């Protein structure tokens, strides 16, 4: 049993990685990015293309792909999300839903339906493991992923609380109008936040490709996991996201113990239980589901 718990916690690191960008974008820009999973898969394909075509190790490839993802985030915010956000809270959801369809099918057209993986390009790392006391074997990749999640969430937390740019981003997320009045360029802060969110998505895509296989339509399940982890952890809270990822992964592992097919069900059940507890204790009922903090536009 302790083995399952350890593996579950480590898997939670991956979920935290993929949920981090979704949660960050929601908390800072009030945008639920439904193209989140597809963008992660896009990053995985970019790394795979660099590796298979130019023999660039995926870890080195990140040096190219992460800046690219940051640029994509900036452009998306400036030219798509910022405009659609002016049309209300619902429009960005529809826009990113459409974007997900475009990305999925563009990847399908370019790379076909074959299942790919980055595992062949990272040597023995994909199956190597360490033996921990109590004859528990933990995958090296799983440990790296967990460490990456902790470093990334901790780094983001420090960035948001300790740096001038981080404060600007937080101020913009609280009140963009007043942020402008104290000298913060709210448009720039939002675009920067989107760029940061996309860097985390790029990293999550890399680990997705290394730990498993992917095809052009892998984005939707990744979005679902990210969404569940973010909601369990409380959307907008960075350390909560790590906790949410761990809870989701533990529930899935437990589900798989109960029944071989119980992996996904376990996660969904945990998600629904947390959701219903939240709704019943918040006193908002079902309206709490869509409790998007209204922005003043005076």
């Amino acid at each position: 049993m302790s083995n399952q718990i350890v593996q579950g916690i480590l898997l939670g690191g991956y979920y935290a990685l993929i949920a981090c960008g979704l949660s960050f974008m929601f908390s800072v820009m009030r945008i639920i990015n439904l193209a989140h999973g597809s963008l992660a898969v896009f990053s995985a394909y970019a790394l795979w293309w660099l590796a298979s075509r130019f023999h660039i190790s995926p870890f080195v490839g990140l040096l190219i792909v992460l800046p690219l993802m940051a640029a994509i985030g900036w452009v998306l915010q400036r030219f798509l999300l910022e405009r659609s956000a002016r049309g209300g809270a619902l429009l960005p959801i529809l826009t990113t839903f459409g974007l997900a369809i475009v990305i999925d099918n563009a990847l399908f057209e370019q790379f076909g339906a074959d299942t790919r993986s980055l595992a062949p390009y990272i040597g023995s790392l994909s199956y190597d493991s360490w033996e921990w006391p109590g004859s528990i074997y933990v995958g090296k990749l799983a440990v790296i992923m967990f460490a990456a999640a902790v470093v990334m969430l901790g780094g983001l937390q420090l960035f948001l609380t300790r740096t001038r740019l981080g404060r600007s981003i937080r101020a913009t997320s609280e009140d963009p109008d007043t942020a402008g009045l104290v000298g913060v360029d709210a448009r720039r802060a939002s675009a920067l936040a989107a760029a940061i969110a996309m860097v985390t998505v790029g990293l999550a895509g890399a680990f997705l490709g290394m730990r498993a296989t992917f095809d052009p339509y892998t984005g939707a399940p990744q979005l679902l996991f990210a969404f569940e982890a973010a909601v369990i952890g409380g959307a907008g809270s960075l350390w909560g996201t790590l906790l949410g990822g761990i809870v989701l992964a533990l529930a899935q592992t437990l589900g798989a113990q109960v029944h071989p097919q119980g992996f996904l069900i376990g996660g969904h059940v945990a998600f629904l239980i947390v959701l219903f507890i939240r709704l019943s204790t918040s006193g908002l009922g079902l309206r709490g589901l869509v409790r998007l903090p209204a922005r003043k536009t005076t």
Partner: protein
Amino acid sequence: MSLLAVENLVVRHGLLQAVRGVSFSIERGETLALVGANGAGKTTLLRAIAGAHQPTAGRVLLDGADITGVPSHKRVGMGVALVPEGRKLFVQMTVEENLLLGKTAGRPGDWSVERVLDTFPNLKPRRHAKTGHLSGGEQQATAIGRALMSNPELLLLDEVSLGLSPLVVDRVYASLQGLISSGTTIILVEQDLNRALSVSDKVICMLEGRVALEGPSKGMSRDEVTKAYFGLHRKSAGSVPA
């Protein structure tokens, strides 16, 4: 040359014309008081000067340069800072973080967190408290301090006494007096007529989006301002029911 000049400014909220062709100017070091009833357009005028609200017509000139199209965050860098009505602090952030945000524009000057805390000693023990948990007076001090952190040449104060007890208002104005005597140019909106007349060099009374009365505060009688405030000056006294 005047530090700030506003020429025929028209500002709308959708269909409502809140400011209708206002012109005035203010010299460096002057203090201008804006008075007027609720809805006269004072707040909208200040927000248009700060760049938070784009005017439909007219010009805003700072030191002779046209800044009408300049967004608010750049105007802070040019030395225009607004203390907004209702304070508008970032309530999830601490006093110190709110003050530091005021420095974003990076104008050189001698305002620092320490100096703000010296000016408003009531903030000292609250430095690391979230501003959502502060009293009204502490919040107002933080809001003024945040604006000062940008080292403004022109400070716009929108109803700094709103929602504060008379005692706290006295304290806030005592700290403002220091600023006024140090030569900062100030435009302030104030509902208390006596206070507005006593701290300012010049007073403008607005009525329904227009300037109803303008003149030096010294020698301006309360009666004159009251008449302009209610729009009594436009008609002959006889036509207005007493």
